[in-house]
């Protein structure tokens, strides 16, 4: 059997605040193959961004990884020191496109200077060598070479986002994590950037984790979908399974709440609000908002169960 590119097992990431322990990521497990794209969807505060940070060992204090393992290419990232993470993993093996990253470009350096930095530091390249690689990468993301000499303020939002994507791909990482990469963009530019992601997926055989609150975007790119709620994965499966045959009441509710442009079907909502992660409800975390709630849901926490090959759901409805 082949070894998956990434195997996350029982990952726990908690924030130790004065109010108590916030269990932002609680017992999350999944695997990702090379060339595969996993979409992670959930509402704000469900822990999806924390999960992304944890994969890079970048959880901001007072948060830290409280347990579990992240095995990338046979190496457990949770066991590595900060120094090793920095020199061997980040950017070289795993790179990340942060939410609003396009606004994180330094205004006082040219695009070339900013893109050359990772190449010079990680690969020990000279600036002239770096230039070639940068030109190549800019072309790959659909930008003109001349952009190298420009400053960020001279570029449009879409162009800046392309620069960020080029930066993430510079060192040929095995895994790219994109956290809400199109949130700040207009629909048309968003569609263009999504096309770029699809191309990248096809051209480079890399693993990709695509995090967003927008299920429509996940459908546009992901092969596999994980739905997160209150720090847990409640449903995971291939994208045809999750979209075509959603089993968890939360997934069903989410899918029914998206207006579709050519359908007059009434959309509905999920009453209530997500729980406070300091004191999550006992049993299933979704029970206060669930319309199929049973006595068992209030007491016992459901575990992920395989309902069809490759499709897992954490819900007591499926015994």
């Amino acid at each position, binding site marked *: 059997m082949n070894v998956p590119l990434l195997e996350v097992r029982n990952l726990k990431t908690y924030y130790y605040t004065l109010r108590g322990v916030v269990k932002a990521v609680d017992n999350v497990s999944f695997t990702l193959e090379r060339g595969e*794209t996993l979409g992670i969807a959930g*509402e*704000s505060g469900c822990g999806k961004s924390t999960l992304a940070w944890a994969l890079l060992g970048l959880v901001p204090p007072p948060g830290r990884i409280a347990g579990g393992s992240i095995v990338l290419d046979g190496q457990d990232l949770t066991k590595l020191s900060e120094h090793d993470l920095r020199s061997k993993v980040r950017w070289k093996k795993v790179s990340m496109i942060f939410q609003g990253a396009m606004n994180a470009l330094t205004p006082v350096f040219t695009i070339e200077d900013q893109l050359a930095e990772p190449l010079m530091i990680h690969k020990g390249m000279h600036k002239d060598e770096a230039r070639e690689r940068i030109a190549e990468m800019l072309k790959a993301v659909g930008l003109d070479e001349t952009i190298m000499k420009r400053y960020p303020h001279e570029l*449009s*939002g*879409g*162009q800046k986002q392309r620069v960020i994507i080029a930066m993430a791909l510079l060192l040929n990482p095995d895994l790219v994590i994109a956290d809400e990469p199109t949130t700040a963009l*207009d*629909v*048309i*530019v*968003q*569609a*263009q950037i*999504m*096309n770029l992601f*699809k*191309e990248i997926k096809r051209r480079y055989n890399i693993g990709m984790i695509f995090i967003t*609150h*927008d*299920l*429509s*975007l*996940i*459908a*546009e*790119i*992901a*092969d596999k979908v994980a739905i997160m709620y209150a720090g847990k994965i409640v449903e995971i499966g291939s*994208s*045809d399974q*999750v*979209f*075509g045959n959603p089993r968890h009441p939360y997934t069903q*509710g*989410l*899918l029914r*709440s*998206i*207006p*579709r*442009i*050519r359908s*007059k079907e009434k*959309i*509905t*909502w*999920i*009453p209530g*609000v997500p729980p406070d992660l300091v004191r999550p409800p006992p049993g299933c975390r979704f029970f206060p908002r669930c319309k199929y709630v049973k006595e068992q849901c209030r007491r016992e926490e459901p575990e992920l169960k395989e309902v069809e090959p490759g499709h897992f759901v954490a819900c007591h409805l499926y015994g």
Partner: protein
Amino acid sequence: MRRMAEPVVKVRDLMKYFPLRRGIKEIITMKPRRFVRAVDGVSFDMYIGEVFCLVGESGCGKTTTGRLITRLLEPTGGHIYYKPTGEVASQIPEKCFAEDGYVDLARKLPKHVDKLLRREIQIVFQDPFGSLDPRMKVYDILKEPLIVHRIGGSEEERREIIYRALSEVKLVPPEQFMSRYPHMLSGGQRQRVAFARAMILKPTVVVADEPVSMLDVSIRAEILQLMLDLQANRDLAYLFITHDLAVASYLCTRIAVMYLGRIVETGPTDEVINNPQHPYTKALIAAVPEPDPKNRFKIREVPIKGEVPSAAAIPPGCRFHPRCPYAMDRCSKEEPPTLEVKPGHYVSCWLHAKK
């Protein structure tokens, strides 16, 4: 809910230019002042009982248009004709009317008339975290418009009005919500308070500027339904401003697509969505992602290139021509006329002009 043959608001050639600061070089060489033409000749009608939608990308002037109609901004030019009814109409002196029953809100009006009319047009903002004062309780937030407009004589009377407003937006029981501060409410509840605040003055027009875009997907439908419920019981016209065509197509009666300060296409929702005529509208619709996993195997055809140019340097002729796949010679020289392609469906494009 009643639908009138006559529009309640008629916007004609509305303009708003924001001056740009001149650099020292421009001042010395006496260059003329430059302007950002945020809204540049917008015309449309709004009817009671409908949800009229302005849709467009950021920077197209949709929010500015909403603010002009609410009169949070002074227009540079054009007219906003509003038809007051009943009690309000009878309190307005004859000389303030511009033409058959319409008052031009873009004109300077006597102070008491102005105040009377401001009550009639209310707004709900995008950000429910920023639009409510964090130091005021829900009760005080809702009482403020009553104080400003001298509604309800005694405290009991006002309390009664606030109770009713809160139960109407389904924040029940009202006693429980009245003494809370905004930070004690969820995003959806805050947006309900914002709607209660707008509705408490019994307006005829409510401008809703992206009221759901800051909310979680799972509760958006709740606020959209609330909007429809509120409209069902009263004579009300909504101006719904959004960048999301899927939400627009779900909620709205008519859609107007804006591009760089102009409306390029207007029509009934079904017409605009299923039979778009302007190349820009077609591109917008093609770009909307859909929750269908089959899409992951295909590249989405977005026929237009580039991004929206700055509103400080609007291209001559048709302002869309630099990005248009069908641009002709004429497009870069003359502004296209607005033509009715089907009853109620208007488009501004040379492709549809008769040769």
